[in-house]
């Protein structure tokens, strides 16, 4: 029982860490209908930027992080201006491809500039186990999970504001948004800037877990699964999806692996997603397509 609880608890925390990346994807999707395949690259870059500010520029953590947030938000704006604005109104799958191209660029750029070797992020969170009611918890994940929830709350509030509503409108219909005076460009830029901000937070935490190198961008695959499981345009969905995926990935292999000789985690998780989507075609909380005949 304790075993189960511990698997579930740690799984849930890891799931929230995935959700942190997934929130960036949801954010961009919600406000422009684009699935951002470059979010993994942004997370990696976020990690690199924090590292560079700490290790190369010698800034203290409390200065490095806000500066990194600013820089990455700026990068989000630049990406919108240079790459996405000209693509407004083009087929979404092409924009998706464009973000894949962007991902390749980022994945090449950061190691080319700062070197491909593994870098360590000195974030002062202790590695010692945190034992709560006999459960071994990971402090970094705990911290990450809490941060995810805070950011989630902030985003929910943001989307209630007028700007937030306008952002949602943009994802529904670009042309109509323009027609009523919404600057699609500015909204998209804002969403990418926010995605950049989230990427710094995710890069910081994931970088603390595994060190900073290009493999940080791998977190995309999981985050994408989480985002889709939750429903691509739902913030709650991302959080719920992260929790569900994290817990399943923690618990199921714990019991199945010893039986079949291991490695069930990815497959089982994939299958659960597969089944969930069969039952709920738009994920847990995704909005359905309104199709009037």
């Amino acid at each position, binding site marked *: 029982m304790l075993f189960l609880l511990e698997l579930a608890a740690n799984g849930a925390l890891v799931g929230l860490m995935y959700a942190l990346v997934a929130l960036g994807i949801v954010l961009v999707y919600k406000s422009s209908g684009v699935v951002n395949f470059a979010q993994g690259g942004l997370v990696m870059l976020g990690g690199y930027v924090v590292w560079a500010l700490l290790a190369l520029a010698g800034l203290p953590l409390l200065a490095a992080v806000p500066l990194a947030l600013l820089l990455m938000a700026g990068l989000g704006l630049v990406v919108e201006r240079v790459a996405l604005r000209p693509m407004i*109104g083009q087929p979404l799958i092409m924009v998706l491809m464009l973000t894949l191209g962007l991902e390749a660029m980022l994945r090449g750029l950061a190691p080319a500039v700062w070197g491909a070797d593994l870098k360590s992020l000195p974030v002062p969170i202790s590695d010692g186990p945190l034992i709560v009611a006999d459960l071994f918890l990971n402090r970094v994940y705990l911290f990450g999970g809490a941060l995810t929830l805070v950011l989630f709350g902030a985003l929910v509030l943001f989307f209630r504001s007028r700007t937030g509503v306008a952002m*949602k*409108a943009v994802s*529904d219909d670009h042309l109509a*948004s323009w*027609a009523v*005076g919404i600057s699609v460009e500015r909204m998209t830029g804002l969403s990418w800037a926010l995605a950049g901000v989230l990427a710094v937070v995710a890069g910081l935490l994931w970088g603390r877990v595994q060190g900073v190198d290009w493999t940080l961008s791998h977190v995309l695959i999981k985050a994408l699964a989480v985002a889709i499981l939750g429903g691509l345009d739902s913030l709650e969905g991302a959080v719920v999806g992260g929790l569900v995926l994290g817990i399943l990935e923690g618990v199921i292999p714990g019991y199945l692996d010893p039986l079949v000789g291991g490695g069930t985690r990815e497959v089982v998780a994939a299958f659960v997603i597969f089944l969930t989507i069969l039952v709920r075609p738009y994920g847990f909380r995704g909005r359905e397509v309104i199709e009037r005949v």
Partner: protein
Amino acid sequence: MEPLLSVNNLEVIYDKVFLAVKGISLEVPQGSIVTLLGANGAGKSTTLKAISGLLGPERGEVTRGVVRFAGRPLDRLPSPRRVALGIAQVLEGRRVFEHLTPEENLLAASTMHRDGAHVRSLIDRIYGYFPRLAERRSTRAGYLSGGEQQMLAIGRALMAEPRLLLLDEPSLGLAPRLVQEIFDIVRRINQEEGVTILLVEQNARAALAIASHGYLMENGRIVMAGPARTLRENPDVREFYLGGGSRMDYQRVKHYRRRKRWLA
């Protein structure tokens, strides 16, 4: 006095190859209702989009001509800026934000205003014009009926407090009673708020009834223009646009009548 809107020798090309609007000119005086009529594919919607700056996403481009609004040429001004100047377009086919509620639709269209209280009072004023919207303010707009969506689309455009309202086929697909309602409201908006209106309509009868001036478009060109009354009485217009109303005998319409064209 200079008209609020003047279009001069406008030419629009789609997809770099297809010439949809071939050098048209028109004027909309301050405070008036002007209607633009024409067959399907004549280029009416294209003209409106050129005025409101919405051609870009459709791969269209203004290649020649000037659009002047309130005395200034619009050139390549992006559409949100045009909305801020006071040009609002109600798109053909309504295109409400389906996943938002009517209330959110209106809120989303208020980004040009700073003052939240002012936005609130605008929304209330729109609910005043369209009480039905107030009733359904929290269902998803995608599930509204056609008429309600059209009301929402017009209301949404009014959020910008426009000086010029471009209406693209507001009666499309609406039941006769609603058509009357919508046209009544359009007339009220024009009279009570002093909003100038450029109206594209297939229901020529209704359009010419409320408009002071009309233009007739065919194949990307303006082929006839004049005061609404003159157009109403023109025999060609009567035959091709106004028809016989309910007195028309469709059983007896000639087989495969050749279409009359003002321009070959």
